[in-house]
């Protein structure tokens, strides 16, 4: 009896082990998991001054993690806000920037502050400067398998000098809408060029107001996505705006692109909301009724002829 009990316990433990083993083997443990903050580092620089900023990096795994920190140049590409990372470091910002740590190991769950020190020379051209700080977990290299590596980029943005708050910073290159939008959906294309020496955040604010007003009503602005525009670059906003509450009318679309500090560049377009589908059906019904009225005598005779018994 005692022997039988031991056998049952043994079989039970073995069964539990066998059932759990595949689960443990299949579960993937994250091999690289880090948190960085800030992920966008905007620094106001002055000639001849030194500025130190902290970047925090945290190892979220339960294993030690070797990390490498590097500074990289990049070019803003396209109108969608793309990156092109450069092998050669041409941005002066990178030459002025020093990191207190470039190769280090984070213990499990450890959080570390990296000091980013930017020492700007006395004489430098005013304007916007930018670069990228990469943090890359170093994984062991097994030559028999395909390696998966990752890195996180931190955007470094710096404006040197204070631009005249009232100076024109941008130009609206394109602002188009459809003249006759269908289904109250307004296709919108906006392209804005930064003509200043500094980068800035452009905030397009669209106000749609009816031209034929029955009552004075304040129109609510529509805020589009804010985007950073680097100097001499163009950014694009292209989207379909759903405007379900617009009634048939002629409308003015007033685009105010804020360049900061209450300054705007503006453009406007007109469009017409007209219910083509409803108007078409109404028109057909009207024509049909008109036809009945005009031809009523002939129709009456035809009906009488059709309904009367054959002689």
């Amino acid at each position, binding site marked *: 009896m005692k022997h039988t009990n031991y056998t049952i316990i043994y079989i039970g433990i073995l069964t539990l082990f066998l059932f759990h083993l595949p689960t443990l083997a299949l579960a*993937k443990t994250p091999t690289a998991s880090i948190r960085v903050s800030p992920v966008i580092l905007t620094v106001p620089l002055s000639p001849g001054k030194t500025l130190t900023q902290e970047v925090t990096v945290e190892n979220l795994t339960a294993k030690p993690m070797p990390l490498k920190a590097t500074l990289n140049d990049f070019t803003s590409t396209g109108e969608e*806000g793309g990156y092109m990372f450069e092998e050669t470091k041409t941005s002066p910002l990178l030459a002025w920037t020093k990191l207190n740590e470039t190769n280090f190991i984070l213990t499990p769950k450890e959080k570390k502050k990296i000091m980013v020190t930017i020492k700007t020379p006395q004489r430098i051209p005013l304007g916007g400067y930018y670069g990228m700080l990469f943090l890359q977990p170093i994984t062991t290299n097994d030559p028999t398998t395909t390696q998966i590596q990752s890195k996180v980029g931190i955007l470094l943005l710096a404006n040197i000098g204070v631009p005249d708050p009232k100076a024109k910073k941008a130009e609206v290159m394109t602002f188009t809408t459809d003249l006759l939008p269908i289904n109250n959906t307004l296709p919108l294309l906006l392209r804005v060029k930064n003509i200043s020496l500094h980068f800035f955040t452009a905030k397009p604010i669209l106000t749609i107001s009816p031209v034929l007003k029955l009552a004075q009503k304040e129109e609510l602005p529509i805020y589009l996505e804010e985007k950073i525009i680097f100097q001499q670059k163009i950014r694009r906003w292209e989207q379909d705006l759903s405007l379900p509450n617009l009634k048939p009318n002629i409308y003015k679309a007033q685009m105010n692109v*804020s360049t900061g*500090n*209450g300054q705007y560049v503006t453009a406007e377009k007109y469009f017409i909301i007209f219910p083509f589908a409803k108007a078409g059906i109404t028109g057909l019904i009207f024509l049909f009724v008109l036809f009945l009225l005009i031809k009523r005598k002939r129709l009456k005779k035809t009906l009488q002829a059709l309904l009367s018994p054959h002689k």
Partner: protein
Amino acid sequence: MSKNNAYYKALGRKTSVLVIIGLGLTVPAYASTPSSTNYKLPEYTFGSGGTNNSTSTNFRLKGVAGEVEFGRPSSTNYKLGSGLTYLNKSNVPPAPTLSNPSTNYDRLKLVINTNNHPTDTEFAVAISSDNFVSDVRYVKSDNTIGTTLSTTDFKTYTSWGTTTGVYITGLQRNTTYYVKAKARQGSFTESEWGPTSTGIPTSDASLTFTVDSSSIAFNNLNSSNSYTDTSKSTTVTTSTNAYNGYVVNARTTGLLTSGSTTIAAYTSPNSAPTSWSGLGFGYTTTDSDLTGGTNNRFTNGGAKYAGFTTSSPGDPVADHAGPILSTISNEQFTINYRVTVNSTQKAGRYNTTVLYVVVPSY
């Protein structure tokens, strides 16, 4: 204090003063004296030597007193202006509500609180990072902040977004901000600044990125699996509050290589992936709203494949476009790999390195 209340209170005080003065003076007999439903001034004159209304054939004089005898009476939250015209002030608005509901790092949500203000009342907002000790700035008409307050920065309650509010943008990360408001309703009605709101801090812009494995080992490719393996994948997980979102780009450092032999990258590019047809090493992604071409190009009508590029910065395989007003938390996308070779492919261990780079969008 409503506009009318302020007027009557001031008028009452003025009345008592003027009546006392009137006892010793000859009051000129002019046209009708000021009156309302409940109050009437039987007689009055101006202490500062002004005159009340008078008319001739071509001109009409509107009498305005020069000064209030008692300066500018004030309490903690209210202050009267000088002169009769200044007495018609808008109610001082209560402290606006400032909040950071989505742990943003460069913006805070502002809701104006009214005090029985008429709908055409306009409000202006001041903002400070030190509770108005030395840092006093203003919320501009575009909801950014500036050092001066212009008349265009006064906006109606509707323009301030009513109960929904607006986001004040361009703020510094990890900084506590305070706001206060003032109101006006037409000329000479600008109120004093109201009480200050509770200080609300901005957060920090953070990004968390996780890759679920450090290596993949493809199956042995042979006739039993048609020289194909589609069973391997990498899952990337991202959390961030970056306003414009993020993009994960992928690239390989080279082709799948064994000695001097390589397996080519699948021929379709990231911008135009195709259903698998042919040979090579490629990938598909579960991101159905991806930048860099038609949004659902990898998922529409079944999995579509593209080959890895070896050029920097790589091609987009996962992203989340802005604007991000609520933190993205643990967003996962899976990149499924496929390798197919023909039977004549030289035997060997082929490997490369796949690099995933996550960057904030701007």
